[in-house]
């Protein structure tokens, strides 16, 4: 067990598990964000956001989430560096014309960087004012005072450039997931000729639901609210 993460498959296992963990996070995140589409002036969304800010989640689950991101990113960097080395210094003059290979699968690191860049902006937009500086406005709902997260979102999405950034980030995430989802199960060994097709279809569906979900929220926020 001790040496498992020192092996290539062990490193991939970490990518797989952290990736699947982040997939779970995405499901929760998207579910809460979909409340932004409820035309109630942001009340439901603010309650949910406030729930997610409760100490158990903030101090208990959030560090785990961060760790998930960090493991996923650091190991992505390590694996990419190792793989470049394994490929060798001499490159093919005639390139690679192997057909039927998913573009995403060969560009996961670049897609990951796109998502990371977006993630940084996202943290600055929300996590910093809500959880670090507490600079966000307050609102009282049902007698409970809380951050007006909805207002933060609502204002942010007035900026067209930010909407575009979110759309690009979400699509990057989508493409990343089209490969990452089934690939995680393949790495876990939970795949064969039948299940690979199932995981791939499920992964593509999931990727687009998540991606289009976030895109829809950004666009609706910009246009409607």
């Amino acid at each position, binding site marked *: *067990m001790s040496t498992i993460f020192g092996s290539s498959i062990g490193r991939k296992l970490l990518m797989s598990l952290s990736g699947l963990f982040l997939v779970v996070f995405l499901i929760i995140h998207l579910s809460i964000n979909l409340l932004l589409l409820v035309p109630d002036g942001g009340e439901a969304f603010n309650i949910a956001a406030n729930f997610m800010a409760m100490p158990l989640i903030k101090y208990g689950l959030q560090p785990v989430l961060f760790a998930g991101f960090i493991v996923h990113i650091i190991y992505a960097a390590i694996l990419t560096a190792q793989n470049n080395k394994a490929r060798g210094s001499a490159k093919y003059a005639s390139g690679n014309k192997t057909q039927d290979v998913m573009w995403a699968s060969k560009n996961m690191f670049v897609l990951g960087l796109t998502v990371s860049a977006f993630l940084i902006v996202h943290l600055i937009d929300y996590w910093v004012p809500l959880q670090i500086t507490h600079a966000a406005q307050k609102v009282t709902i049902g007698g409970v005072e809380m951050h007006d997260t909805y207002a933060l979102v609502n204002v942010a999405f007035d900026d067209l450039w930010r909407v575009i950034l979110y759309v690009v980030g979400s699509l990057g995430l989508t493409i990343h997931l089209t*490969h990452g989802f*089934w690939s995680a199960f393949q790495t876990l060994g939970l795949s064969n000729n039948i299940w690979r097709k199932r995981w791939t279809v499920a992964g593509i569906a999931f990727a687009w639901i998540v991606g289009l979900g976030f895109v829809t929220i950004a666009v609706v926020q910009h246009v409607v609210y």
Partner: protein
Amino acid sequence: MEKNISLTLKVWRQNGPKEKGRFETYKLEEVSTGSSFLEMMDILNEQLINEGNEPVAFDHDCREGICGMCSLYINGRPHGPDDDVTTCQLHMRKFKDGETITIEPWRSAGFPVIKDLIVNRNAFDSIIAAGGYTSVSTGGVPDANAIPISKIDADEAMDAASCIGCGACVATCKNGSAMLFVSAKVSHLALLPQGKVEAARRAKNMVAKMDELGFGNCTNTGACEVECPKGISISNIARLNREFLKAKLQD
């Protein structure tokens, strides 16, 4: 029908393992489309020798797609522009008159160039030596029909065992990973009761050797499966992952 075509060949030439290589360009006229790619290389070499030059060194042997000796990265693909073939089975009818063909050696840190288009694939033998067998010595084994094996398992093991060890999987993989090769052997033996006995040990030892020899980490692009001349499936890689993780978790 067969016809003759003219070609321009850009061929990697390298005098020795430590020497610097370069591309040389050769013109070849009147090549029959009925000839195989390696026969075209023979014609080129005959021409070079007649001109007093050194012929191009390339690996080949059985010329019927089973020994795994031939390699060559042709126009961006290992074993060239046809599916489910080795270079020796590639025929010139796949090329157009006047076409320029770029011919390179397998390129991967695990497969250093020896000369021209010949690379060293001894790493594959080292991986097999690390555990790609059943530990039975000659004699004293049970009757061949003593253990029934389901036809499905036997067929699947056969599919995995059809690997010819050519290295196209490594050559095409953007990560220089040998996972398809290793997984084919691990799967072949893990699927059979005779091999199952030491499946855990085998998976661990073979993966450790593969890592030690500097092959990359699999990122499941599936390019190996596409270029494998024997169509070995990446579901074998899933099985290797499963066998390996199971083995490691039991340690």
